[in-house]
C-alpha cells in the first residue's frame, strides 16, 4: 500500500495513513539502496551477474523463473550483454551459461523425454514438474515463481533482501510447526503459535523456506566476499532486473520524452500567449 499511497500524493490526494492489513503483520523492510533506483538509476552489471550466480546455485533448486530465457542474460541491458554480440544467442558467455544447465526436450525420433544442455533460446528450466511435485518436496509449501517477484511484493527488492537476510530464531513463547521458520519480514499472523502476552505477538510470519543463504555459500567470480548481506543484496538486484529487464530503456526513453514535452509545452505556451494577447478575457 505504500506505493499506492505515493501515487495518491502525486495525484494531489491526501491519504491519512497506510492501511493495516487485516491481521497480518510484518516488519518494515530494511532501508537499503541499489544503483538502479531513481530516475537515472542503472543496474550494476557485476552485481546482477553475482545475483544470477546466487539464483543459479541456491534459489533455482526450488524456485522457477518461467518468464526468463538464457538469452535474456545477454540482451541489451542484461548482466552479460556484450556489444560485440547484439544477438544474445551468439554471446559465448550466455551460451556457456546455458550449456551448464540441462533442459528437458523431446527426442524427435522416439518421442521420449530426454535431457540436453540448454541453448540461449531455452527458458530457465523449472525445478519441479508441476505444483504438486513442488509442494510434495517442500513440506506442502509452494516455492513461488521468481520472474516478477521483485514487483509482486510490497517493498520489492528491499523486501527480498530483508526476507533473505532476516531469519531469526523464534523468540521464547513462539512455537512453530515443524518445517516452518521465523522471519519477521514475512507477512503473517503468528497469534496462533504465540504463548506469550496477547498484546506482544511478534511481527512477521512462519515461512516454509529454510534460511537459504549462508556465508561462503556462493563463490563470486569477481572475488567479492560472500557474506549473507552481499548474497542477499545481489540476488535482490538480479531479481529486480529480471522483473523488468527493460527498466533502463524505459528511463532513458522517459528522459527524452520529458525534455521534449517540456519544450513542447513552452512553445505552446508562447504560442498561446501570443495568440491571446489582444483578446481581453
Amino acid at each position, binding site marked *: 500500500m505504500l506505493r499506492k499511497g505515493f501515487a495518491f500524493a502525486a495525484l494531489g490526494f491526501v491519504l491519512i495513513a497506510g492501511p493495516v492489513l487485516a491481521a497480518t503483520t510484518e516488519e518494515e523492510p530494511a532501508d537499503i539502496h541499489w544503483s538502479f533506483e531513481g530516475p537515472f538509476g542503472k543496474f550494476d552489471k557485476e552485481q546482477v551477474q553475482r545475483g544470477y550466480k546466487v539464483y543459479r546455485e541456491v534459489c533455482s533448486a526450488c524456485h522457477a523463473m518461467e518468464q526468463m*530465457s538464457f538469452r535474456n542474460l545477454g540482451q541489451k541491458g542484461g548482466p552479460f550483454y556484450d556489444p560485440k554480440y547484439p544477438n544474445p*544467442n551468439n554471446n559465448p558467455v550466455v551460451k556457456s551459461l546455458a550449456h551448464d544447465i540441462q533442459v528437458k526436450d523431446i527426442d524427435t525420433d522416439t518421442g521420449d523425454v530426454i535431457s540436453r544442455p540448454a541453448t540461449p*533460446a531455452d527458458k530457465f528450466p523449472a525445478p519441479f514438474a508441476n505444483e504438486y511435485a513442488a509442494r510434495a518436496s517442500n513440506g506442502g509449501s509452494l516455492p513461488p515463481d521468481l520472474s516478477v517477484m521483485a514487483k509482486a511484493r510490497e517493498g520489492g527488492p528491499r523486501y527480498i533482501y530483508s526476507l533473505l537476510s532476516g531469519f531469526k530464531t523464534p523468540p521464547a513463547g513462539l512455537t512453530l510447526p515443524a518445517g516452518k521458520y521465523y522471519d519477521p519480514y514475512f507477512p503473517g499472523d503468528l497469534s496462533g503459535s504465540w504463548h506469550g502476552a496477547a498484546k506482544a505477538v511478534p511481527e512477521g510470519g512462519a515461512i516454509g523456506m529454510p534460511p537459504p543463504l549462508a556465508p561462503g555459500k556462493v563463490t563470486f567470480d569477481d572475488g567479492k566476499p560472500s557474506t549473507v548481506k552481499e548474497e542477499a543484496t545481489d540476488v535482490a538486484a538480479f531479481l529486480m532486473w529480471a522483473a523488468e529487464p527493460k527498466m533502463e530503456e524505459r528511463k532513458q526513453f522517459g528522459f527524452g520524452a520529458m525534455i*521534449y514535452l517540456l519544450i*513542447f509545452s513552452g512553445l505552446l505556451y*508562447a504560442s498561446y500567449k501570443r495568440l491571446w494577447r*489582444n483578446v481581453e478575457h
Partner: protein
Amino acid sequence: MADTVAGASPDLHASGEDPNRRDFIHIAAGVAALGAVGGLAWPFIDQMNPAGDTLALASIEFDLGKVVEGQQVVVKWRGKPLFVRYRTAKEIEAAIKDDHADLRDPATDESRHKPGKAQYLVLVGVCTHLGCVPTFQGGDYGGWLCPCHGSVYDTSGRIRKGPAPLNLAVPDYAFLSDSKIKVG
C-alpha cells in the same frame, strides 16, 4: 498583457510586430506537435516486428540418416517447411546437365549443396511465387511442383516453368558431422 483593449476583435494582425517572428512560434509549436506524433509512431509500428522470443527461435539439428535415398523429409523450421532431400545419382546428373540451360534464376547445382555432399539438398520448402508448399517429385523435371499455380522446380530446386520468379531458397546450414546438419 496589462494593456488589454476592451472588446478587441480577435485579429491576429492587430499588432504591428514583425509577422515572421509571430508566425515562428506557432510554426515551431506545430512542428513540435508533429514531431511528438512522429516520435511515438515508430514504437507503435515497430511493435509489429518480430519480438525478442521470435528472433531467438532456436536453430534446429537434423539427422540425415532419417532420409532414404530418393526420398525427402520435411521438417518445420521457423514456422516453415524445410525440405531435406537425398538425391539419387540420376537426379544429380540431371541437375548438373541443366546447369547451362536457359534458367530463369541461373545457378549451378554445385552452388546449391555443400561441397562433397551433392546427394543432400536442403531447401526452404516455400514456393517463391506466393508461398505454397511444392509437392515432391511433381512436374516435368522430377523436382517439385507447386499445386497452387503450377510452378515447376527441377531436382536442384531451380525454377523451370510457371509463374515463380526464383529458385527454392537454400537456408544457412552447416554439417556438424557426416550425418548431422544444423540449420539456422
